[in-house]
């Protein structure tokens, strides 16, 4: 099945490429862990300590409200953060590798 050129094979085995894959996985998995931590932290609070979210910060306003809206904004900002990292750092390495392989 391997129809790749030697050059391509060399890149797959290179330390530099392995480092890129590792970096990518660590960024994705870290961000995933952050999202899961925040979300399940919230759900567990709702499940076991819901009085915490009913804590008043105004005449009627509860802390649960800014926290809830905050999680929505936070989730979106994380996608922005990832996009920024991928566009600026990851894609640069991708371009270098692609140039090496495609332009012979």
């Amino acid at each position, binding site marked *: *099945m*391997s129809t*790749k050129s030697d050059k*391509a094979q060399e*890149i*797959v085995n290179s330390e530099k*490429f392995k480092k*890129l*894959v590792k970096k*990518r*996985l660590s*960024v*994705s*998995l870290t*961000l*995933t862990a952050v*999202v*899961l931590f925040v*979300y*399940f932290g*919230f*759900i*567990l609070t*709702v*499940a*076991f300590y*819901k009085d915490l*979210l*009913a804590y*008043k910060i*105004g*005449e*009627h*306003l*509860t802390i*649960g*409200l800014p926290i*809830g*809206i905050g*999680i*929505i*904004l936070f*989730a*979106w900002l*994380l*996608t*922005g953060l*990832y*996009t920024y990292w*991928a*566009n600026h750092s990851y*894609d640069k390495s*991708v371009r270098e*590798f*692609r140039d090496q*392989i*495609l332009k012979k």
Partner: protein
Amino acid sequence: MENFQTTLGQVNIASIVIFFMFVAISLFITYWAAKKTKTTSEFYAADRSISGFQNGLALAGDYMSAASFLGIAGMVALKGYDGLIYSIGFLVGWPLVMFLIAEPLRNLGKFTFADVVAFRLKQRPVRIASSFGSLSTIIFYLIAQMVGAGSLITILFGLPYEVAVIVVGLVMISYVLFGGMLATTWVQIIKAVLLLGGATFLVIMTLSRFGMNPLNLIEKAAAMYGDKVLAPGGFVTNPWDAISLGIALILGTAGLPHILMRFFTVPNAKQARKSVFIATGFIGYFYILTFVIGFGAMVLVGHEAIAGIDKGGNMAALLLAESVGGQFFLGFIAAVAFATILAVVAGLTLSGASTLSHDLYVSVFKKGKSDEAGEVKVARMATLLIGALAITLGLIFKGQNVAFMVGLAFSIAASANFPSLLLSILWKRFTTRGAVASIVTGAGLAITLIILSPTVWVDIFKNESAIFPLKNPALFSMSAAFLVGIIVSLFTKEEEAMIKFEDEKLRTYLGIGAE
């Protein structure tokens, strides 16, 4: 708010005119798209010509169903804060789609997510299993949408249920049949813009009654209905239920076939990434609007009037539209809700048709040997089949309580589609048998457990008590799918799959050789 009178259910001229305009424009787009829809890549993936921004809007369009617009606004209107807990679950799946799935999916796949699961494994068993996961997700989702469409249109326009289901079915089939992915995408984009625009306007009109300050609205709501509307309430009766539902919502999003399919419409991984960023932004914005709309309805329309028309509160957003913008605005929002249903069922039908034609007919039945024109013809026949099925199921399930089916679709997506997709992307040792066992376990358990759960066993079959205690099975079915997938893979070594995993890293990470 005293004695709020509604014209809901009477013939609303504005609504009919706006709806027919939407149908006319979307059919015109379909006519334009039909001329550009001849090859498989055009039919399934709009020839990968959709930009990241456009796809972001279309993803948002696919995801913001009438059920989430009307349902969540209604839940907020009647229960307050609990509605927000749902919205958060629906939104938080999106970052996970981005970090784990979107780019490798785009690089490795061609038209369906099963392309990626089957990529380095044995095609036939994996395609058959993942088609089962895919089709069951799509069919349960479709039933919920069609029945919702029928009842909604009956309330909104006074049309008979059957007529409504057939009209929705026929219009939707014509988008997909003639215009393929290109028409479906543009229908989603137009609908997303209308829905976001309509909801924004509704929020502005509502807030104008409260000095443009959402806090005034929320304080008023608490003053009227008590502080409990601003804190978690009956959402959680059993903490494990909350966790299980949470899993279904966030991981289910990453396993919905019609959402995953959209990533093949953009030219490359960078645009796939951009489309998730755009989609997450619009969907998050939309849920925040829905929250304000719910509270607006609570204060300006009132619990009694909302629950008087529909016990679940589904008409809250429409009643609010009438209360702040009169009959014309009610008509506009009603037409948008109708358009929303059309667009969502079109997306579902297209993805069901591609599973039938691309995954089952071509990859399994024809063993991958099929010519372009032949496959497009089969895909069109599959569209007719799924469309007819949607109409038939919509008619069969008339008057049934199908609300649980959306939850079921998300549970199957989280348990059958997501684990196999993620393991095939990330784990070198994943094997064919592991994949098949994982999908069968996930889908089988999700379906069996929901039948035995309080949602179906007690609420629908009217038994005294449920055999399975949780309302949502995802906690068990998803964990079991991962466990079974991993254990079976560890016992069945597949050298070829491991070699391909290394070989294809250039494609996964750099996009070299991607379709």
